[in-house]
């Protein structure tokens, strides 16, 4: 319990840092985003809106700490104001529409690549020096070392544009009513294949290597020798003795890998024109929609922290030493 509380406190600090970063960054830069917003709208913006932006971004006249409190309040109450890109739709609504797509894509891809990657890693360490151990991790590492943008472009070119196996973009065929029918979900699945495969390709190697290296380290421990001496079967030693302990560093690696998954998400959604948060943040950057951009950033940070917390919970389940 103490462990979880400590982690929770840590995440709260991290969120606080993210909010403060969001608050300070525009103030450290020359100019003021509200002016940029105003200029961008061609001066067609009603004065009240401008005032609302100033209040929302905390650019009210007043000392810095007052502006800071104002900003904190608007973040906590999710009162993030309207977007500029899709005026007057509120920022919170736009984010709400894109979040499920991203969580679906990143979540499924992460779970699949962790599962498959750990399995391959386990297999490679079991057959140490065998074919899989010697070539498969290297092959996947080579694949994964391509920047996700490049992988996505190649896949898009080959499978969507040339072979026409998959659609050219979007999360779902816009002609189909989102009524929850089977055709709708089939369309969603069809559109998700390429982005998901690309994401999995870029993540798989991490898990193969993490699992394999963790296994190799664990297999050198004395209790493995002891288990062998007791005459336990290889399979039992692998699953119940080695893998059980090798999985811990894998769970720790989740926090590293998540950042990577998010990065992949941004490129992949941009290339495949997928309606998720990653694409939204790029769109908001290119339209200089500062409120939306900052909200996207905050949302991504919160999601990553949440996933980290889930990994911590998992850690407690897997490691009895933390259950005090």
């Amino acid at each position: 319990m103490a462990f979880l509380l400590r982690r929770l406190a840590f995440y709260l600090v991290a969120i606080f840092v993210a909010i403060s970063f969001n608050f300070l960054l525009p103030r450290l830069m020359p100019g003021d985003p509200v002016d940029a917003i105003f200029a961008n709208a061609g001066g067609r913006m009603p004065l009240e809106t401008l005032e609302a932006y100033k209040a929302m971004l905390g650019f009210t006249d007043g000392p810095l700490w007052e502006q800071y409190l104002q900003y904190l309040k608007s973040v906590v109450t999710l009162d993030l104001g309207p977007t500029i890109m899709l005026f007057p739709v509120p920022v919170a609504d736009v984010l709400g529409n894109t979040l499920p797509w991203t969580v679906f894509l990143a979540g499924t891809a992460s779970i699949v690549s962790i599962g498959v990657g750990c399995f391959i890693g386990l297999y490679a360490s079991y057959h140490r020096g065998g074919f899989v151990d010697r070539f498969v991790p290297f092959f996947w590492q080579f694949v994964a070392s391509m920047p996700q943008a490049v992988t996505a472009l190649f896949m898009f070119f080959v499978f969507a544009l040339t072979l026409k196996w998959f659609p050219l973009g979007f999360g779902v065929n816009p002609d189909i009513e989102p009524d929850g029918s089977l055709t709708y979900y089939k369309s969603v699945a069809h559109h998700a294949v390429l982005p998901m495969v690309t994401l999995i390709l870029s993540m798989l190697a991490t898990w193969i290597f993490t699992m394999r290296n963790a296994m190799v380290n664990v297999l050198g421990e004395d209790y493995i020798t002891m288990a062998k001496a007791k005459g336990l079967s290889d399979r039992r030693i692998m699953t119940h003795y080695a893998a059980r302990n090798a999985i811990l560093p894998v769970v720790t690696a989740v926090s590293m890998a998540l950042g990577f998954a998010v990065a992949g998400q941004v490129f992949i959604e941009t290339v495949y024109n997928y309606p998720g948060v990653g694409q939204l943040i790029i769109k908001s950057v290119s339209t200089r929609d500062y409120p939306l951009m900052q909200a996207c950033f905050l949302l991504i940070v919160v999601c990553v922290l949440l996933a980290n917390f889930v990994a911590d919970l998992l850690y407690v389940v897997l490691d009895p030493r933390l259950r005090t």
Partner: protein
Amino acid sequence: MTFAKRFFGGLVKFYRGNPAGIIGTMIVALILCACLAAPVLTDNDPNKRVARGHQPPSAELPFGSTRAGKDVYTQVLYGGRVSLLVAFSAATITTVIALSIGVTSGYFGGRIDEVMMAITNVMLVFPQLPLLIILAAFLGQVGPFVIALILGLTSWPWGARVMRSQTLAIRNKQFITAAEVMGEAKWRIIVVEIIPNLVSLVAGMFVGTALYAIGAQAGLEFLGLGDPTVVSWGTMLYWAQSSAAFFVGAWWDFVVPGTVIALMGGGLALINISIDQISNPKLRTGRYLRIWRQLKAQVDAKRSQS
């Protein structure tokens, strides 16, 4: 003389029985040399219009031309100089920061360690790319120099953790205690006693960060956050994307820079893996394990008989 001997001896030892390292080094060296020798390998100017737009590869233009009629071959060579310079400077900055933070907090411990690791851990949970995007967006379209700086200043936390744990592992070894008892200065212990033991980690980190920086720079520029007037691998992708090269069938516009980036990344990754195996020999794999496997099979066969 002895230094050169040790250096080359080390190199030979590193590459012997290490095909991944050899292939990786060859790829990286080939691309690096081609980029450095750009003025010899091509007569064109990367910024000059030499042909009509989107000409397919031919004898004159081995990789075709871009939408603006520039020579893709020349652009890849000159662009590589920028991309590789960014990657290696970012890697240098990151390695220096990670090494100093990791070793300081590992060696001194106590309050310094707590504060430094708290900062490192907070930095570590932040997803890096969105952070880079926000920074780049507020700075406006950033040049290669700024990209190198941002990448270098944001990618050190993981390395710092690795360096710290390795420092912790050696700081209680006897040779450190001996140095302390003899009254060596703290900076001397760090520089002369500890850092030489971290060399393989430092090398691994440098290569790993360069690999990351190549991808991150290409990505940021591809997304339009870089300065599009500078020719680099990332901006080539950006121009290909914004001129809809795929949809008009000008695949070479994408495929050439994409392949070069992928090869460079792959080469660096192979080097990185082999360095990992040097710093932790347990992780090794290879032909010599066959003997071990044969022995194990014999033992297993015996066991199942009895």
